[in-house]
């Protein structure tokens, strides 16, 4: 399954919302999952709950308490925070953001800036992962998941660290594009990796 980058936009202006979305649509793997206009209550909480990969903030958004908001989302994990600035944005505002996009730039420069900020992730997003076939190890782990074992139990049984099991699990879910255990079960049965009787007796 292609990787996707989820984006949250904090922007009060309808015109800018549409413009940014149109810009982001140039990257097939980027997806705006929510737009807030800055007036929402508990905004930081809502943003964090959605665990976006990228957060784009317009510091001019009315009703947005920028400083306290940035403080609240500060403990982010891998979330890229980008400020949307113009030529007139004061330096002390620009310096609040780890990354900025200047909306007066031309489309080409904007796209280049985004690539520079997001790096490899943006290019791999939207493209399918190479080698869709499951490795033998992944097939074994898939079978154990389907039989109802927890990550810890699989790790113990196969003499692997739980971290390795989690990684395999994540990779095989990405390769197949199937997230739930019941979905994986259907896949394993169709491909005869497990027998229906094994599952019924688990």
């Amino acid at each position, binding site marked *: *399954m292609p990787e996707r980058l989820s984006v949250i936009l904090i922007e009060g202006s*309808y015109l800018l*919302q*549409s413009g940014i*979305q149109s810009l982001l649509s140039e990257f097939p793997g980027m997806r705006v999952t*929510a*737009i807030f*206009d800055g*007036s*929402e*209550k*508990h905004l930081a*909480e*809502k943003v964090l*709950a959605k665990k976006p990969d990228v957060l784009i903030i317009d510091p001019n958004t009315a009703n947005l308490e920028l400083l306290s908001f940035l403080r609240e989302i500060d403990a982010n994990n891998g979330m890229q925070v980008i400020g949307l600035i113009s030529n007139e944005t004061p330096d002390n505002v620009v310096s609040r953001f780890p990354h900025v996009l200047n909306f007066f730039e031309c489309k080409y420069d904007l796209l280049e800036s985004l690539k520079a900020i997001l790096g490899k992730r943006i290019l791999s997003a939207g493209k399918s992962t190479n080698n869709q076939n499951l490795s033998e190890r992944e097939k074994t782990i898939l079978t154990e998941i389907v039989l109802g074992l927890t990550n810890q139990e699989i790790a113990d049984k196969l003499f692997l660290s739980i971290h390795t099991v989690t990684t395999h699990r994540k990779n095989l879910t990405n390769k*197949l*594009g*199937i*997230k*739930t255990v*019941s*979905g994986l079960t*259907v*896949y394993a*049965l*169709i*491909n005869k990796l497990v027998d*229906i009787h094994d599952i019924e007796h688990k």
Partner: protein
Amino acid sequence: MLIQKEMKLADVLHHDHNLVPVINRFDIHLGFGEATIEEICEDKKINREFFLTILNAYHDHQYFPKKHLQSFPASSLVNYLSKSHRYYLNEKVPEIESYIDDLKENKDLNTETYLLLKNFFGQYKTELTQHIEREENLVYPYVGQLEKYIEKGIVDRSFLEEMEAYSITKYEEEHDDVEAKLYDLKNIIIKYLPSTGNDSSYYKVLRELFMLENDLNDHSRIEDHILVPKVEAMEFTIKNMRTNDA
């Protein structure tokens, strides 16, 4: 296109026929001739602002009603959302089940695979039903209580405490897990079913699944962008109200 009160409802439907089930939930049915939205609302005693808000929210994914939220009661919104729940459970889900049943007729598909799909969709249905029941038994009555206290202008202290423990903001986080199953089912049909050379029965199931997914996305957009902000504003009003120690 922004849908406005002067427009003929017929023109709106020509533009976006997916709104037919939406108007049905307001008890409006096809055969309204040349009537405008304004006329229909008057005739059917429907809150016009509310009707327009819902139509626009379904039609335009970027529609943010913001200032119009105050112009209708939360109870009409909750009533509308419950009706769409009934539509999913009593119409859409059985429809998909019958298309899945039709897969039996495909001689190239073995019974085992057919049963797997049927069973998987059954599990999805159970989860969707539970999710909907939780909303109807927990969230909607809560909204009704908020409305009642605002009307009275005075709130019980015990309710204030309850409100602190369960705020609508939490509810937003709860509702995106059911989607994963639907996504998996689509992927299994597209990528992993045995090739039979005849896709028309698969296609029918798939088309319905995509439509249901779309409907559910619209539904949660309305919850996130209309219900939640409205209820948050109500919670805010209540926090600043006189309290009744009883």
